[in-house]
């Protein structure tokens, strides 16, 4: 499968800056750039505040890594995704299948 991971995927890790009131400003910094294969899985709408922002859900296949966490963001062809599902191919720790839901700023 290595040969078919032809696309670039940027893993973004959250950086939290405390706000002195128990909350934080959250920014994302580049954690790593990896190879992936991806496919569109569907669409998603962000309806918060009447803002009907459309986006897509996408399945990414990448080499297994032990530092993937749900709070990361994924950047692929200029679009940013929140992780909604992380699965392993099997118990051999070869590949991860990660589903992302597009987010708007």
């Amino acid at each position, binding site marked *: 499968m290595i040969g078919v991971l032809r696309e670039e995927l940027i893993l973004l890790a959250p950086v*939290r800056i405390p*706000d002195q*009131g*128990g*909350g*934080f*400003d*959250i920014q994302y910094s580049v954690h790593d750039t990896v190879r992936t294969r991806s496919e569109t899985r569907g669409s998603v709408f962000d309806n*918060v*505040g*009447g*803002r*009907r*922002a*459309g986006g897509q859900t996408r399945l990414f296949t990448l080499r297994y890594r032990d530092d993937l966490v749900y709070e990361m963001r994924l950047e692929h062809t200029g679009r940013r995704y929140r992780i909604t599902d992380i699965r392993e191919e099997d118990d051999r720790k070869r590949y991860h299948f990660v589903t992302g839901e597009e987010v*708007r*700023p």
Partner: protein
Amino acid sequence: MIGAPWSLQIGLYTYLQQSTELQSLIGNPARLYDAVPPDAIFPFVTIGEAQVKDYPGVDGALEHDIRIHIYSRWGGRKEVKQIAETVHDLLHEATFSLIDHRVAHSRFVFADIFRQTDAETFQAVTRFRIVTEPTV
């Protein structure tokens, strides 16, 4: 003559949009909407539900119950509280220009601040009671 509810919305929108205090929190031009565009970015403010009823004792006067919503994706309540406070300061016991009407008085009623079910968005609902009188 323009009706008081629409005149109030135009006046309110213009007044808040032009506030430099609000612009410092929600951008310039201020991200203040009635209908929110799909590409709106957080934080933003919307003009929400309104109720209008007669204001007894003054000919043509109306009492408007207006809600202003604030949406933020800051990791906590800081941003919505700051914006809500600014909206409060701008509207409580304030006056601003209307077409064919005037603001007789404007008072803050309450603010409710909570997290949306998406777990990422914080919302404040602020409510104001504004009485208008016709000028023509």
